[in-house]
């Protein structure tokens, strides 16, 4: 791992990661986000307009997911509460130049926010929108949630899912303890 990678404490969260946390099979995304958010050396940020748009689409997300809107709100609010929502005016100076760092114009705000806070990491599920090499040259890494978790020092080998032999609240605690590396006694 390169030195600049070790120092990257600002994580720019792409909205696709927030939405993907609602996919049933994406348990690792949810765990990764929680551990990234609860590591005091990390700072999670998101463009404010993008976060507001997520909130504006709660009803549509709920309809497509087939769950009550209040539950979607509770879940996504839980994630958004762990991030600093940054007003676009704070990184407007980086916006124009950052257009050259993305393949998808809609990802410009995320790239600009990352450049403003470099060294930093863009945490995304769709790397295709970003020009990884150019961003790396600007002190920004583009990583998936799992890669970001590893990047911040948590080894995936410590993630031991014990759900099969435990139930209810203890299963939740067991997974969390396994993630932070606490060994349980059998």
């Amino acid at each position: 791992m390169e030195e600049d990678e070790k120092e990257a404490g600002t994580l720019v969260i792409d909205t696709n990661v927030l939405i993907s946390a609602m996919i049933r099979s994406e348990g690792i995304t949810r765990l990764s986000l929680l551990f990234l958010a609860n590591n005091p050396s990390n700072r999670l940020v998101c463009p404010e307009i993008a976060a507001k748009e997520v909130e504006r689409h709660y009803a549509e997300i709920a309809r497509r997911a087939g769950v009550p809107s209040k539950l979607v709100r509770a879940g996504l609010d839980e994630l958004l509460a762990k991030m600093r929502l940054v007003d676009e005016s704070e990184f407007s100076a980086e916006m124009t130049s950052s257009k050259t760092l993305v393949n998808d114009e809609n990802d410009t705000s995320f790239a600009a926010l990352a450049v403003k806070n470099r060294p930093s990491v863009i945490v995304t599920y769709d790397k295709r929108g970003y020009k990884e090499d150019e961003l790396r040259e600007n002190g920004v890494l583009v990583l998936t949630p799992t890669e970001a978790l590893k990047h911040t020092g948590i080894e995936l080998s410590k993630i031991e899912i014990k759900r099969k032999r435990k139930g209810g609240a203890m299963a939740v605690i067991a997974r969390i303890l396994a993630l932070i590396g606490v060994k349980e006694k059998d």
Partner: protein
Amino acid sequence: MKTETVQFELPKEVMESAESAGFTKEKLAEMSKSFTILEVLAATSKLDKAQARAISQKIKASAWKKTKRKLGL
């Protein structure tokens, strides 16, 4: 939103291990709460990867349109 309080007990030795790893009771409780909410949401969600991608694209396109208008880009 109405809320309910769910209480559960953790073995003392587990709490001691967690605290020795730098996690306070409050932090552990906070993470457990977040994790539980997200797991319940996901367990009942029918969202698949294609749908998640489509919603995300729509959200980002709308956000970028507003950003351009706000900043005069």
